[in-house]
C-alpha cells in the first residue's frame, strides 16, 4: 500500500503524484514512441485512429465530463476542423498553420453554439446542439463551391514547405505529438482556476455562480476549448482518411463520440483514451467474434448496432463511471488486498431529482 502525505499545494497539483506514475507513464510513452518499429502497418493505422479519436474525446470530455454541458452535435466541430484543414492544405498552406486555423475556426463555431447554452441547459442544450449539428452537416453538403458537397473533398497528406509526410509512421508521429500536447494542455487546464471553475459549474451551477464564477464566460470558454480540440482531431482525421464527405459528420458520429466518453468514463482524462480504444477496437472484436456465431446472427448487418447498444446499456446500468471506473475498482482491490470490501463504490440510492421543482 502506498500512502501519499501531501505537505504543500505544489505537491497537490503535481501531475505525477508519485514514482509509480512516472514509471508507468514513462513506459507508455516509450512504447508509443517505439510503436512504428514494433507494430505492423495495419495496427499502426488503428493506433493512429485511436489517437485521433482520443483528441476529439478529450474535447467532449472537457465539455460533458468536466463542465457538465452535453453536446449531441460534436461531429459538427470535427467536420468544421476537417474541412478547414483539407481546404487550407489544398490551397498550399503548411499543415501546422492549417491545423491552428482549423482549431481556431472550430472554436469560433463553438462559441456560436455556446450562445444558446447561456440560456438553456440540460436536455434543451442537447437539442440545441443536435439541431446545430444537422445544420452544419447540411451546410457542408450544400456549399458545393467550397466543400465539394456530397461528392466529397480530397485531402492530401500533410505537407510543410514542399516536404511531404506520406509515410504512415510520419503521420503517426504527428498525431502522437498532437495528442501529447492536447493531453498535457487539458491536464494543465484542469488544475488552473479555469478548470476548477468548469468542475464547479458541473457540480452545481448555482453554487458556482454564488462563488463568483461568471457562468456565461466559462460556459462559452468550455464550448470554445472543446470545439477547438474536436477541430484539431478533425484536421488529423482529414489527413488520415484523405477523403471527406458530409455524412462522415452526421448524428451517428456525434453519438459515437458520446459513446466514447460515457464508456471511457465521464469526468476522467483517462476515459477519453480508454473510450477511444474501445471505439476503434469494438468493430475489430465484433468481426473476430462473427466467425464463432451462427451464420444468421454473425453475418447479420445489424449486429454491430445491437452490440454497441447492449454495451452502452450495460455500462450505464452497471458501471456508470465507465472503463476508468472499472480500472479504479481493480486498482483499489489490488492496493487494499486482501481488505477490499464489497460496496466500497456502491452508488447511493437517491430519490428522483426533478429539474423542474427543486
Amino acid at each position, binding site marked *: 500500500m502506498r500512502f501519499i502525505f501531501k505537505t504543500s499545494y505544489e505537491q497537490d497539483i503535481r501531475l505525477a503524484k508519485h514514482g509509480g506514475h512516472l514509471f508507468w507513464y514513462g513506459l507508455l510513452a516509450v512504447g508509443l514512441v517505439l510503436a512504428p518499429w514494433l507494430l505492423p502497418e495495419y495496427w499502426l493505422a488503428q493506433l493512429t485512429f485511436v489517437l485521433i479519436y482520443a483528441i476529439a474525446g478529450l474535447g467532449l470530455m472537457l465539455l460533458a465530463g468536466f463542465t457538465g454541458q452535453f453536446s449531441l452535435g460534436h461531429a459538427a466541430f470535427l467536420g468544421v476542423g476537417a474541412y478547414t484543414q483539407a481546404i487550407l492544405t489544398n490551397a498550399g498552406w503548411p499543415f501546422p498553420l492549417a491545423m491552428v486555423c482549423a482549431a481556431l475556426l472550430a472554436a469560433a463555431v463553438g462559441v456560436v453554439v455556446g450562445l444558446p447554452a447561456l440560456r438553456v441547459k440540460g*436536455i434543451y442544450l442537447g437539442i440545441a446542439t443536435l439541431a446545430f449539428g*444537422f445544420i452544419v452537416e447540411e451546410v457542408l453538403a450544400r456549399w458545393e463551391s467550397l466543400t465539394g458537397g456530397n461528392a466529397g473533398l480530397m485531402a492530401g497528406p500533410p505537407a510543410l514547405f514542399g516536404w511531404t509526410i506520406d509515410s504512415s509512421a510520419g503521420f503517426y508521429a504527428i498525431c502522437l505529438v498532437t495528442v501529447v500536447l492536447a493531453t498535457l494542455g487539458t491536464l494543465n487546464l484542469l488544475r488552473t482556476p479555469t478548470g476548477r471553475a468548469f468542475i464547479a459549474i458541473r457540480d452545481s451551477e448555482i453554487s458556482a455562480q454564488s462563488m463568483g464564477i461568471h457562468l456565461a464566460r466559462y460556459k462559452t470558454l468550455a464550448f470554445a476549448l472543446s470545439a477547438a480540440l474536436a477541430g484539431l482531431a478533425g484536421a488529423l482525421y482529414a489527413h488520415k482518411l484523405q477523403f471527406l464527405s458530409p455524412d462522415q459528420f452526421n448524428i451517428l458520429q456525434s453519438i459515437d463520440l458520446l459513446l466514447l466518453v460515457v464508456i471511457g468514463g465521464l469526468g476522467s482524462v483517462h476515459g477519453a483514451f480508454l473510450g477511444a480504444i474501445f471505439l476503434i477496437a469494438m468493430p475489430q472484436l465484433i468481426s473476430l467474434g462473427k466467425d464463432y456465431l451462427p451464420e444468421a446472427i454473425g453475418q447479420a448487418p445489424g449486429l454491430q448496432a445491437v452490440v454497441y447498444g447492449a454495451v452502452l446499456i450495460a455500462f450505464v*446500468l452497471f458501471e456508470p463511471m465507465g472503463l476508468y471506473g472499472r480500472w479504479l475498482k481493480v486498482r483499489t482491490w489490488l492496493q487494499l488486498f486482501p481488505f477490499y470490501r464489497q460496496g466500497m463504490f456502491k452508488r447511493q440510492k437517491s430519490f428522483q431529482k426533478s429539474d423542474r421543482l427543486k
Partner: protein
Amino acid sequence: MQFVQLVISGVALGCIYGLIALGFVLIYKATETVNFAQGELMMLGAFCGLAGSTLLGFPFWVSVLGTLAAMAVIGVLTERLVIRPILGQPAFSIVMLTIGIGYVARGAITMIPGIGTETHTLPVPYKDEVLKLGELVLSAEQLVVIGVTAVLCALLYALFRFSKLGIAMQATSQNQLAAYYMGIPVKRLNGLVWGLAAVVAAIAGLLLAPITFVYANMGFIGLKAFPAAVVGGFGSLPGAIVGGLVIGVVESLSGFYLPEGFKDTAAYIVVLVMLMVKPNGLFGEKLRKKV
C-alpha cells in the same frame, strides 16, 4: 390554393411529429427522462403492424389492435428492465441509456433476415384514395392521420382530465414524493406511462407507414420530433401537438418556397430560434430552480 394544399400536407406530417413528441412529453413529464428511443419505438410499432398484416395475415384492424397491445407490453417491459434501476441518476446517463435502447432496437430489426434490410409498404384499406374538394386534392392517408391524431388527443385529454388513473399520473408528474405519500403507486404508474408512450409511438408508426415506407431507419424521424417538443414546451401535452404542427407546416412550406436544403433543416432552424427567443416553448411552464 397551392398554399392551402401545402399547409394540409404539412399538418398531416406535423401530426406525426406531434404524436412522437407527445410520447417524449408523456415520459418526460412523468419520469423526467428524455427518451431518445421514441423514434425507434415508432419503428417497432410499424414493423409490428407489418408483421401482423402481412406475415400472419390478420385483418387490418386486428393487427392494429395487436400492435398496440404488443407495444404497450414492450413499453412497460423497457421501463421495468432498464429504466427503473437507474432512476435518480443524472439525466445524462438516462439519455445515453435510451440511445442504447434505440441502437438495440434498430439493430435487432435489421438483423431479421430478409425483412430487416428491406423497405416495405404497409397494406391499409384506405390506400391511394383521394378526396377532391374543389381544387384541393386530399389523400386519404393524410386525412386519416389528421383525424386519428384529433381523436387520440381527445382521448388523452379525457384520460388526464376525468379518469382516476390520469389524475394520478398528473400528480406523479408534478411531485413524485408527494404522490407517493398520498398512496399513489408511483413505480407502477411510471411503467404505465412508458406503455402509453409506446402505444402513442406505435399509432404514429402505423399512421406514418402508408405515407412513407416501413424500414429499419424510419426511427430517425424521431429526431425531428425533438424540435416539435421543444417548440411546444417540453412539459406540455397540447404543446407537443401544436409544436409538431408548427414544425410540419414550416417544413412543408420551406420545402416549396425556399431553396433546396432548407426542407431538412427548417425544423432545426426553428428550434434554435425558439430556444434563443423563448426557451420554455410556446406552452412551457416557467419554472426556476430554487436553492
